[in-house]
């Protein structure tokens, strides 16, 4: 039971952290729980569908089907988070300033609910599909194990993973409103970079890119990737003990892209002084 719980916990953790951060980032946004709830529910349904289709997908593209699906999901999630980071900053920055001046709560923060709901859905989809596949395997086919043990492990793992997400959310909820925007924006930018790094790894694993595919260093002596802290840092910030050059390129490139694009968006949005007639 505990082995099952641990595996489910790690899968759930990654999704729960993303949902928790997005939930905290959208504090004050109208009907956010409805948006986020729909995203999570859609992701869960999609996860079941993806798991049921897994063996068909796996054999597609000469055995690379699952990687291609993963690449598509990661690319879309990356696009969502980059878009939110670039455009959210413009509105959120101004809205936060207004809120401070007026002393009122930030109404929408300029967040685009559909974008964030989709980002949540994709996170749940990815991790959920693996979890469902894993549990189906245990319950459906392994006749040596009574079904209640893996289901109990599933419940415990789900609860523990969700609890960590809730803790992140609660922790971020204590951040004062005037700082909340900057903190959650930073977390989401790093999440985007982490997803970009995973995308790079998926591209290499699928054989689509052959450049910079060897690890540049090995930091597992200092922080093992499967340790508790390593797992948390992997989910939050994309920590990899043996990153390839391509992963670092995608990671850094995402940070640079978001920074430059945000700067441009902010510059074009800043009203310029009008010359006197």
């Amino acid at each position, binding site marked *: 039971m505990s*082995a099952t719980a641990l*595996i489910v916990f790690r899968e759930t953790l990654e999704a729960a952290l993303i949902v928790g951060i997005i939930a905290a980032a959208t504090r004050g946004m109208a009907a956010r729980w409805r948006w986020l709830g729909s995203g999570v529910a859609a992701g869960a349904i999609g996860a079941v569908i993806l798991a049921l289709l*897994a*063996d068909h997908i*796996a*054999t597609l593209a*000469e*055995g*690379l089907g*699952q*990687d291609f699906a993963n690449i598509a999901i990661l690319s879309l999630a990356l696009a969502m988070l980059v878009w939110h980071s670039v455009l959210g900053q413009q509105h959120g920055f101004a809205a936060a300033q207004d809120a401070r001046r007026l002393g009122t709560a930030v109404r929408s923060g300029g967040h685009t609910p559909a974008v964030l709901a989709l980002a949540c859905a994709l996170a749940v989809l990815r991790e959920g599909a*693996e979890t469902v*596949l*894993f549990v*189906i*395997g*245990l319950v*459906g*086919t*392994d006749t040596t194990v009574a079904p209640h043990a893996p289901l109990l492990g599933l419940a415990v793992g789900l609860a523990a993973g969700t609890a960590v997400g809730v803790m992140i959310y609660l922790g971020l909820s204590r951040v004062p409103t005037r700082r909340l925007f900057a903190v959650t924006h930073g977390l989401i930018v790093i999440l985007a970079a982490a997803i970009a790094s995973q995308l790079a*790894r998926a591209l*290499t*694993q*699928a*054989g*689509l*890119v*052959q*450049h910079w*595919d*060897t*690890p540049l260093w090995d930091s*597992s002596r200092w922080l093992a*990737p*499967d340790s508790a802290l390593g797992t948390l840092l992997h989910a939050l910030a994309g920590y*990899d*003990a*043996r*990153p*390839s050059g391509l992963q670092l390129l995608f990671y850094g490139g995402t940070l640079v892209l978001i920074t*430059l694009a945000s*700067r*441009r968006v902010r*510059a*074009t949005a800043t009203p310029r002084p009008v010359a006197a007639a």
Partner: protein
Amino acid sequence: MSSSFFSPRRPTHHWLVSAVALLGLAGTGLTRADATEPEVLLTIREHRFEPAEIKVPANRRIKLVVHNQDASAEEFESHTLNREKVVPGRSKATLFIGPLKAGRYEFFGEYHAASAKGVIVAE
């Protein structure tokens, strides 16, 4: 007034051209598997990898085909290879590893880690 490349006064289409050029440049790095890669078959049977030790040439990309003959899914995972892939029951999946420096690289099946273990030896 500066007219640096990142100046906000640059028209949008300059950005688009640059983005497309960058993507095009990146696209030249895309490759499909070529037939000269060594292909290695790894079988999962009763939650064990067979063979448990695989020898591969060092410094070359390897195409690893994992055939899961069990009814339940398994996740091929390796920290040293930095790879993870779920292989559904009664399915085959392909993944690429390497180029690997000479050495031993352990892998395991995350869903049945007690029994599903193996090592790739690059030499």
